[in-house]
């Protein structure tokens, strides 16, 4: 059995569950509905098969997740990913950080921001707008949250409107949720070790 990865990476690892995933063939009608399994879509990740043990929450979570990260308008998709990365750094969710760092890199067509964040963590030096966004996400993700009026003022000064700040709050907060599932219910491992 391979060892879990502890260092941040933009290469998406494999996720190995600590709780037994349900077997698709044993799934109840409620679970199948929450899993969105259809005859043309039968590929379901082990992560989602673990979450299917609570199908009522899973059913609500999937459309909410997609709306927060991909709905039109407001904050750019790349900057929402930066919010997700900020949360994942604080909670040290290596898997979530990898997925959303790689999405950020694709959307922004720039790997230097994530490289600096992975090298320097919460104190990474970025452009003023990126710093305001990343720092807000980091502080909101602390427990208890540490965001203040000054952090809000920094976002406004960086040119973010209320609609963009709302999207940043949503994406960083959402990863307070996602990190607490991914990081606690499984381990990120090298994909090459996957049979």
């Amino acid at each position: 059995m391979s060892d879990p990865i502890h260092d941040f990476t933009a290469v998406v690892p494999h996720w190995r569950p600590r709780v037994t995933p349900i077997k698709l063939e044993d799934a109840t009608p409620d679970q199948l509905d929450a899993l969105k399994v259809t005859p043309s879509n039968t590929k379901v990740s082990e992560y989602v098969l673990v979450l299917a043990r609570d199908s009522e929450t899973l059913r609500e979570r999937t459309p909410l997740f997609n709306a927060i990260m991909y709905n039109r308008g407001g904050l750019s998709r790349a900057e929402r990913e930066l919010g997700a990365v900020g949360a994942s750094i604080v909670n040290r969710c290596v898997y979530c950080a990898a997925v959303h760092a790689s999405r950020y890199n694709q959307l922004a067509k720039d790997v230097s921001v994530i490289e600096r964040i992975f090298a320097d963590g919460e104190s990474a030096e970025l452009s003023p707008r990126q710093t305001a966004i990343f720092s807000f996400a980091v502080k909101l993700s602390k427990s208890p949250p540490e965001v203040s009026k000054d952090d809000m003022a920094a976002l406004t000064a960086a040119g973010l409107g209320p609609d963009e700040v709302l999207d940043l709050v949503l994406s960083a907060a959402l990863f307070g949720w996602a990190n607490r599932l991914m990081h606690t219910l499984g381990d990120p491992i090298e994909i090459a070790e996957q049979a």
Partner: protein
Amino acid sequence: MTDIFETAAVKASGIQMDGPLADALSGRSDILTMTQQAHDAALKPDEPGGLSHKMRAALSCRIARLSQEEPLAAHFATLMDSASGPTEIGQIADPAFDGGSDAWLRAILRHTDLVTTDTKAVVAGDIPALTDAGVSEDDIVRLSEVVAFLSYQIRLTIGLRLIGDAS
């Protein structure tokens, strides 16, 4: 569609219906409505398993208090008081209560507090610690969703309040 000003996150944030934030919120009314549906699925599911509705509300109140988010803690305290079940469950809402002599409850509260306050410190052994104390795998996932959803709800509420105060 739910009135977004009736959702727990927007109510606890204290923001006003006529504020400049209202436009931004109405643009995301679908998300605020889905947030409330997720709240109901985590707090009042049809199949609560080993975690009763009263216990979920008490855990949520505890998590909000650990996060120093008193308006949401008050919301969950009200939910807890209105749910049926033994009054002792109310002890769970006090972060100083560790579960006493009940090993199952002690394991659940230890995990709740750890995941809430120091997620990065969770290690592989924390899951067997729950199963060893008699927490089923279904209930581990249910508990994880309650803690994880609350962490989202708390941060959304705090963020809304900050935007409201600035506008």
